[in-house]
């Protein structure tokens, strides 16, 4: 049973929700669209297919305080940071990002459970939006994601001037409760059909991922072509920081002068000081770091998670890599042909 709302009344809805909950949505600021807290002055950009940063920041922010130490005389007081207690809604999440939450759950909600992430997941309602116009960099279709009918607590479609809602979960039902029922669901069906047609035309829509699994781990790992693939890699963290599924973080201390703040922040396996240890680094060259990233996404993660790849095909890395080196290169270079 779908609900509906004229598109121009969306701000009204947001206003109403934001009385009680924070609304996070794709917002344009300084020329770029990213998920941000919606306010009356925000420029909402539901038409933007890809935010620069993925939606994962809503549950796993780039920087997050964990604990504070305070010196009182020569004694140390320890204050753990509070976990989130307020409700929020993240609106306009695309199918790929929605899948990324499931992947992150496998990391942060498996034992030991990450309390900060768990609290955010608990208090967050995910409202997804179907992709009316997928782009050439999209390849979500490879991972069983349907951009025409994304997951989430609520799924939305924008068809013409109307936005349609379908609640998928309890949270979703609560979210859509006050909305009026849809008179006619056929525009949504029409739209879904349309999208499905477009998805068939994606240039990277049907990759052959054969051979990327735990059984071929050593073959993939020892493939001589890694160095060739990584040669142009700058070692920046662009791919990891725009990626919805990268979940590595570093824990750091900051001395404020009056106390020490321990916080965690995203880390990138592309950085030379990633997992740096006392004796140095175990991945001394960029080739090894580069390999780590893709082995993790395409081999290690699926071998530990029932074949689930740690990639959702959002295509952000395709667009953003300064030197155009990305997962498609790897899949095509090291993929099926080798085993065929």
């Amino acid at each position, binding site marked *: 049973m779908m609900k509906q709302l004229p598109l121009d009344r969306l701000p009204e809805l947001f206003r109403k929700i934001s009385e009680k909950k924070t609304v996070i949505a794709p917002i344009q600021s300084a020329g770029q669209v990213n998920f941000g807290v919606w306010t009356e002055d925000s420029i909402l950009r539901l038409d933007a297919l890809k935010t620069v940063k993925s939606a994962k920041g809503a549950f796993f922010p780039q920087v997050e305080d964990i604990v504070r130490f305070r010196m009182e*005389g*020569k004694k140390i007081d320890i204050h753990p940071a509070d976990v989130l207690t307020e409700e929020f809604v993240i609106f306009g999440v695309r199918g790929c990002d929605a899948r990324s939450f499931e992947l992150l759950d496998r990391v942060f909600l498996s034992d030991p459970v990450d309390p900060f992430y768990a609290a955010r997941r608990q208090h967050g309602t995910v409202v997804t939006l179907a992709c009316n116009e997928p782009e050439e960099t999209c390849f979500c279709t490879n991972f069983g994601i349907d951009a025409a009918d994304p997951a989430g607590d609520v799924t939305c479609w924008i068809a013409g001037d109307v936005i349609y809602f379908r609640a998928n979960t309890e949270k979703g039902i609560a979210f859509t409760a006050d909305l009026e029922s849809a008179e006619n669901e056929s525009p949504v069906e029409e739209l879904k059909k349309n999208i499905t047609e477009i998805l068939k035309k994606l240039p990277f829509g049907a990759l052959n991922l054969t051979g990327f699994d735990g059984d071929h781990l050593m073959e993939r790992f020892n493939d001589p072509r890694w160095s060739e693939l990584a040669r142009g890699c700058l070692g920046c963290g662009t791919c990891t920081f725009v990626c919805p599924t990268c979940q590595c973080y570093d824990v750091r201390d900051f001395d404020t002068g009056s106390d020490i703040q321990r916080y965690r922040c995203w880390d990138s396996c592309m950085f*030379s000081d990633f997992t740096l240890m006392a004796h140095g*680094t175990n991945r001394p060259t960029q080739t090894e770091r580069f390999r780590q990233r893709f082995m993790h996404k395409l081999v290690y993660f699926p071998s530990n998670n029932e074949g689930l790849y740690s990639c959702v095909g959002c295509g952000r890395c395709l667009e953003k890599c300064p030197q155009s080196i990305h997962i498609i290169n790897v899949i095509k270079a090291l993929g099926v042909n080798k085993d065929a």
Partner: protein
Amino acid sequence: MQKIGVFVCWCGSNIAATVDVKAVAQALKNEAGVVFSTDYQYMCSENGQAMIRQAIKEHQLTGIVVCSCSPRMHEATFRKTAVSAGLNPYMVEIANIREQCSWIHKDIAEGTEKAIVLARAAVAKLHKNAPLTAGTSPVTKRALVIGGGIAGIQTALDVADAGFEVDIVEKSPTIGGRMAQLDKTFPTLDCSACILTPKMVEAAQHEKINIISYAELESLSGFVGNFTATIRKKARFIDEDKCSGCGVCTEKCPSRKGLDEFNMKLNKRGAVYIPFAQAIPNVAVIDAEQCLHFRTGKCGLCQKNCSAGAIDFEQKDQLIERKYGAIVVATGFKPIDASAFNEYAYNDSPDVVTSLEFERIMNAAGPTKGQLIRPSDLKHPHEIVVIQCVGSRCTEDKEKGKPYCSKICCMYTAKHAMLVREKYPDVKVHVFYIDARTPGKNFDEFYRRAVEQYDVDYIKGMVGKVAVEGDKLHVQGSDLLNGEQVHINADMVVLATAIEPDPTARSLGTMLTASMDTNDFFTEAHPKLRPVESPPAGIFLSGVAQGPKDIPETVAQAGAAAAKVIGLLCKNELTCNACVAQTNEAICNGCSQCEKVCPYGAITYEDKEIRSPEFRGIRRIATVNEAICQGCGACTVTCPSGAMDLKGFTNSQIMSEVDAICR
């Protein structure tokens, strides 16, 4: 983790009146790392120091903070105290709570709070301190004097008399310099040669002095106490050891086209010549450009006539490499080129001469044997005009002139006027002057004598134009005091030209990394307090190379430079500054930026093998010579990676202070 002791000084009531010293000591007890904190009336007193020593031992302190007067006052004292208790002297920090706190604030609460902050900053810095050891470097007990004029000779003699070896490098075939060209000296009118030549002889005969004439410094490396100089001894085509200076060759030489440099090119000399009778070394030299042997392959008359067999046409330039502990720059001056002053007809008439040319004309050993005659027709002049400040005191944008006062012209002009009037009372002498600058012992008296006793016609004003009219020189100038333009038909015009540093000074300065001003005079390390030292350690300045000066000043400065050299050479080794720059080789890029800003040339680059997480292999790395580095820190800021740091004032030390102050 450091174990820090804090010692708060009352300085009697100087500090205690506006800072609650007990509260400061108490507050500091809570600082991380502070294991002992106390206060005392006079920390610098014997009792105070004993208290510090005892606390260091008792609490096994690794460093101390003394909250007291300015470190400029007692840092050295407390460092000694620390050393006597077994601590490294650089594990001492001073919080300046007197000059920069108690003395400027009236409110006790305010003063106390600030004192606590300053003490915390010192503690914060001390946490990052590391024991430092000043390096030492040996001293080569030999000095190099560049330039063999009166300045160089005097410095060499003084240094040699103290028992150190000195080499004088002189670029011309003889030592003696400009002073040897002079006739008389002001204000006593004693003969220049009479007072200079004995010194030249003394230098030549001194067992510690080695004169390397007809030679120039080719390159220099090293640093204070340890310079290595390469000296190019130019081929003079005469075996110095064999030549007796008899002069036969000079008489036999058929070439007569060379211009006599010693006589300011007023006359000709042979291709083989001895610059002047008292030259030292008294050895001939062959001017290869003029010599017929070199030009045509024939002649060789000199060789045939030399009974000593000293002529050696095959002689080559010789490179001498020697080590020195100190270097003295005594490169002197030359008069500027007067040909730029065509309004004075210098290019048009041989009777317009510079003062140094006039000096040679008046000199008994000069081209005219001391006869005052005009170069053009060898006639006796009756009216002479002297123009002062030619090329001195010009704006800097005037290419032909110098912005400074050449200092000696007023006096030598008075001397010239007086000498002419003394010898030839019939000759009228007019002097055009802007100001008569005669500050010196007996100087003004001398100038007044020229006016009063010798009736020299001093005209306040300048000459605008000198025109050749027949055999006369029509001088047109202004007489500002009488408000009229004067016209004089003179027989000779003498230009009191400005002096400038010797043209070799600039390249020498670059070689020595000695700084120079825009006029190519060497800059002193401090204009008031270190006037005979160049900023790079071990380089000293003597004579006009540093700025215009007369003979007594030159000699005085030469002696002062010698005293500094002796002070350096009498040490067996030099203690280097402990707070020097240091490269973190693991992260140095070898980009050469630090080298560019180092005022001492203390940074060089070496290819070194580096093993770090980021890099393994051979890489270009900056190396700091601790003996040269003075610890300014210019390099540290230029280094983008932070590989260059300054011991004693490291990035982390300073940032800790900042943090503590802003806390």
